[in-house]
């Protein structure tokens, strides 16, 4: 187990290096620092402003090798975009944003809270609701209950997410006036009022694929021999479904669920930006719209880290949930 973990982490580090290299190609090769600076200061800015902006943001370094100050000076030698890129990402020192010139670390700190306050309830409620409804549908398979659940799944999956957001804001926010249309206030007494609608709409948007997947997994488990054994020893429906079927179905479900956990921190792009929640999701959208390459680079990097962490977590949780799995 420990050996496996160490190896998995080593692979993870390798992958992170690959990601950083790819990011460098994307952010310094495909879009080069000149373009970034040009976009930041505007097409008609004075050349001095442009040069000064590049200098302030560290974009004035040479790409790969710094030979300006003589070949024998090691420190100067590595004073380049490539080294700086790796150094910053590896040490989580993301520098300042291209847009607004704020420390990125502060933006991340401030955005994580609002993001989590949206994604965490969404994740927990979605999981409980999804598993509960899928269990019911599987238990009542091929009855009108099952069919109704499947119908709702297919309908919600077929309708574009944006429609739910805008429709929900219109119906619940504007017409019924139950909750604010959008906005955010971290104050504990009112935060729920602002989160209710986005969480609800997030649930509706995520409902279909999850319930369908879980239902399939449950149905598969319900046909297994050990379920028949459980019934033959006198276990009732609830016990069969919860103690036997759910426990076994947990293993495939885990892949789906654990993978999502690290992404709770990176926020929800669509929901946050439409509901004006100042989390990391809307930060990313703002960075996209505002050509904030430093910010974007950071978010893509964190997303990749979340993905790698999710994979390792999934493997470990597999081993914890299934005694047959030996990590080696």
């Amino acid at each position: 187990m420990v050996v496996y973990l160490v190896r998995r982490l080593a692979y993870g580090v390798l992958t992170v290096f690959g990601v950083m290299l790819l990011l460098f190609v994307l952010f310094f090769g495909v879009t080069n620092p000149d373009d970034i600076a040009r976009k930041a200061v505007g097409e008609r800015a004075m050349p001095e402003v442009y040069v000064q902006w590049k200098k302030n943001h560290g974009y004035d370094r040479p790409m790969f090798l710094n030979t300006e100050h003589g070949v024998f000076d090691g420190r100067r030698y590595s004073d380049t975009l490539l080294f700086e890129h790796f150094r910053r990402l590896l040490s989580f020192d993301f520098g300042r944003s291209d847009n607004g010139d704020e420390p990125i670390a502060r933006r991340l700190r401030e955005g994580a809270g609002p993001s989590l306050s949206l994604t965490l309830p969404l994740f927990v409620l979605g999981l409980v609701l999804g598993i509960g409804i899928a269990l019911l549908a599987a238990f009542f398979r091929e009855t009108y209950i099952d069919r109704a659940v499947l119908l709702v799944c297919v309908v919600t999956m077929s309708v574009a997410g944006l429609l739910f957001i805008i429709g929900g804001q219109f119906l619940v926010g504007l017409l019924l006036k139950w909750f604010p249309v959008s906005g955010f206030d971290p104050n504990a007494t009112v935060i729920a009022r602002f989160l209710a609608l986005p969480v609800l709409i997030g649930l509706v948007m995520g409902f279909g694929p999850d319930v369908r997947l879980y239902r399939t997994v449950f149905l598969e488990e319900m046909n297994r021999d050990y379920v028949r054994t459980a019934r033959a020893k006198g276990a009732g429906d609830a016990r069969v479904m919860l103690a036997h079927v759910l426990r076994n179905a947990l293993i495939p479900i885990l892949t789906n669920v654990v993978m999502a956990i690290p992404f709770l921190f990176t926020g929800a792009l669509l929901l946050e930006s439409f509901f004006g929640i100042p989390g990391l999701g809307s930060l990313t959208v703002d960075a996209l719209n505002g050509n904030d390459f430093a910010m974007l680079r950071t978010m893509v990097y964190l997303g990749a880290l979340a993905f790698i962490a999710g994979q390792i977590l999934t493997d470990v949780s597999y081993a914890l949930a299934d005694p047959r799995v030996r990590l080696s």
Partner: protein
Amino acid sequence: MSAPLLEIDRLAVSFRAERGRVHVVDRVQLALAAGETLALVGESGCGKSITALAIMRLVPRPGLIEAESRICFAGRDLLSLPVAEMRNVRGGKIGMIFQEPMTSLNPVTRVGAQVEEAIRLHAKVPAGEARRRTVELFQTVGIPDSGIRVDAYPHQLSGGLKQRVMIAMAMAMQPRLLICDEPTTALDATIRAQILELIRNMATTTGAAVLLITHDFGVVNAVADRVAVMYAGQIVEEGAREELLSRPRHPYTQGLLRSIPRPEARGNRLEEIKGVVPRPGQWPQACRFHPRCPHAFDRCRSETPARTVVSPTQAAWCHLVDEEARA
């Protein structure tokens, strides 16, 4: 003679098919006395496993036990029992073990816990007591190091040990009837005799009756008191073991017994029953065996045979036997 422990009458099980319903078990009649071991023999697909599952009311969907069926166990009609009481019967009064010990145990739960579950579903005992009884049961069914093995997961045990766990689970509440559905088919030949011996011993010491489903006459010979032969969803012959094995009356039983390889017939071509087993839903009219029967005559094609008693302990559903008995 007092009322039998288990009495099955007109048992019919059908599955919904594209057109109408297909019967896989059709008017099966069986009786089992307390403490008796009855072997239910037949080829795969003849409905013997479904018959066993019907007793437990565990016929898988979309199978349906037809309304005219009657299954009477210890004086109670199982088919009209409320669900909660049926749960008490399952595992409490009737234990069941299955063909595949590999897949019949829950793979993510320790085997001891699975047996404890069987106990605690029927007896209000504290966890420690259930565990103590489980270790004891493991000893009884011959699992070495039972105190350690209770904490093993199924994949850590061999097929034979898993089947022993299944037996421990089925016998945990000392049921009056033990249903064994091909208990040794999936096991190595060397383990088979041990498991059969164990089933027989457990039944003898607790006084349980055994309904043993098999297609193997070696198994029948080893443990059965009586034998019932099934073909195409129906019982075709039943009788005391020795009588039926030495003097089979139904041509199907005769064919089955002739097709067993024997050392003294070495070198000769093995006899077989001509034709193939008909699939459910495509069963012939009248006597279902007549297209494959070497002795079939007109009556076999036009009239369903009734039960013909050939001795106090043997009966066959066959026109030929009927005509001989009349003559």
